């Protein structure tokens, strides 16, 4: 019998004959109830013990994670602002305090737009709060980035790259984490570098003109007859100089693209005529490389509003690459047609484009280097071994120009089988871009 029941019988039922059968039945069922109750209690105790142990573990985990989070926040050199859904700041790291020269407590509950003025770099006007990354990220639910000139309360200013990333709780946007980076120095260095290249290139062109013109005159016999050996040497000088001029021009173009100072002026361009004229210019190289050259033009190809000079750069680069990187007796096919974005899997599906393609049976682009082919100063290993003449700037220029004008470039290639480059320009025309400098 359960101990408690036994005690209570002794205390309350003393003198009663508990051995009588009706008592026996009664007490047995109570005894069972007591035993069940005990079992239940033990069970509950055990689960309580487990829960509290788990809770303690959990608390420890939270504390560890918080400590980690805190140290991560303090360690990152970029300023971080975390906001609530209403864009008010709830968390700032040390770098944020330093950047805005303001105590964390003084910033909490305020909006980022209350603390600094954001200036649009293109028009110099201040950006309203609802157009700033934090509020845009809250209203769109997407990551929003941008570069602005930020003006602090004390009127000091700096160039900042801002990236606002929304976070969700239970699938609802709950606020944003916003990273602000002072990029003043980076931009200055970048600008100084590009300006140096631009200046140096200009200065280089005068002596290059001198070399070019005097060599031209010697070759033409302006200073008297020359023998074949002398002619051969002078031709080497002339072509070496021409390569240097091309390199300087390419460097100037790159610096203009990187300074953002190049301009793009669309005017009606007949791509077929342009292609024919570029091919005429490179006829000597086609001949020298013994290539089978084919041109395929869609009849009545529409005239497209495009920048003539830039289009020429695109055509020249892709055609001379095909010639340079195709072994003798190979084939190059240049073609121009119109195509819809969706049929090519490039551009906007519903937009119509002019498609310029150059297919060759050349060395091809190694698969493992395919993603680097448009990178500045990159040259694929297989062609570097075969052809020394190449700046590593051509395809970089092609892609930069197309990115600026709403076009696209891509390629298919198999090593030692050949490569096809595709360039598309919207039939509606290249996007105009105001700038100080034309490309050369």
């Amino acid at each position, binding site marked *: 019998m359960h101990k408690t029941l036994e005690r209570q019988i002794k205390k309350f039922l003393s003198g009663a004959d508990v051995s009588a059968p009706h008592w026996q039945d009664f007490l047995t069922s109570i005894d069972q109830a007591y035993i069940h109750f005990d079992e239940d209690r033990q069970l509950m105790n055990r689960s309580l013990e487990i829960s509290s142990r788990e809770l303690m573990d959990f608390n420890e985990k939270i504390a560890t994670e918080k400590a980690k989070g805190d140290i991560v926040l303090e360690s990152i050199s970029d300023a971080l602002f975390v906001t609530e859904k209403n864009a008010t700041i709830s968390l700032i790291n040390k770098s944020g305090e330093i950047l805005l020269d303001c105590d964390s407590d003084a910033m909490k509950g305020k909006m980022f737009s209350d603390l600094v003025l954001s200036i649009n770099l293109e028009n110099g006007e201040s950006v309203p709060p609802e157009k700033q990354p934090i509020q845009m990220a809250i209203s769109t639910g997407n990551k929003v980035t941008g570069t602005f000139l930020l003006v602090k309360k004390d009127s000091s200013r700096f160039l900042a790259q801002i990236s606002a990333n929304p976070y969700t709780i239970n699938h609802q946007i709950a606020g944003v984490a916003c990273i602000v980076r002072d990029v003043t120095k980076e931009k200055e260095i970048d600008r100084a570098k590009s300006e140096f290249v631009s200046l140096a290139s*200009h200065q280089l*062109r*005068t002596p*290059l*003109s*001198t070399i*070019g*013109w*005097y060599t*031209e*005159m010697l070759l*033409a016999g*302006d200073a008297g007859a020359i023998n074949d050996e002398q002619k051969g040497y002078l031709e080497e000088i002339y072509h070496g100089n021409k390569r240097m*001029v091309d390199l*300087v*021009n390419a460097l100037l173009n790159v610096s203009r693209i990187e300074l953002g100072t190049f*301009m793009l002026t669309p005017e009606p361009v007949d791509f077929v005529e342009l292609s024919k004229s570029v091919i005429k210019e490179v006829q000597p190289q086609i001949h020298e490389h013994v290539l089978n050259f084919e041109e395929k033009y869609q009849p009545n190809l529409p005239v497209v509003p495009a920048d003539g000079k830039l289009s020429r750069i695109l055509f020249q680069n892709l055609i001379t690459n095909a010639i340079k990187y195709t072994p003798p007796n190979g084939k190059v096919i240049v073609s121009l047609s119109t195509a819809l974005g969706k049929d090519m899997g490039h551009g906007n599906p519903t937009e119509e484009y002019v498609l310029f393609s150059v297919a060759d049976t050349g060395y091809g682009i190694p698969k493992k280097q395919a993603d680097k082919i448009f990178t500045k100063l990159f040259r694929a290993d297989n062609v570097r071994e075969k052809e020394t003449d190449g700046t590593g700037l051509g395809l970089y220029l092609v892609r930069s120009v197309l990115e600026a004008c709403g076009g696209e470039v891509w390629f298919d290639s198999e090593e030692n089988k050949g490569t096809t480059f595709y360039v598309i320009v919207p039939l509606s025309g290249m996007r105009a871009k105001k700038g*100080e*400098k*034309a490309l*050369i």
Partner: protein
Amino acid sequence: MAEEPKEGQKTVLIVEDEKPLLNAIKIKLENSGFDVVTTRTVDQALSYMEDLSRVDVIWLDHYLLGKGTGLDFVVKVKGNDKWKQIPIFVVSNTASPEKVQSYIKFGVTKYYTKADFRLDQIIADMKEVIV
């Protein structure tokens, strides 16, 4: 003051500050049958314009010695009824596109970047214009 040209010979005024280039242009133009007058400044170019009995064509650089650029010279030449018909060929490495636009607007015949063109090509274009 330059000598008077021979009968039927065309006179070209070259305005270029870089001596080696000036020299190359002069020799090439003389070898191509031109009577050549050279200067490195806008001021002297203008006094040649006044003094010479005729100038048939002008070869002009943008940046020059002394005060004034090629553009200042063009403005003066094209603003003078006596001279405005004279074709001007601007051959420069340094002029920016806006300046090129200004040159074209003021009515120069053609603009070349030095490093990208051969002398014989520019001279062939010149001959075509002044025939």
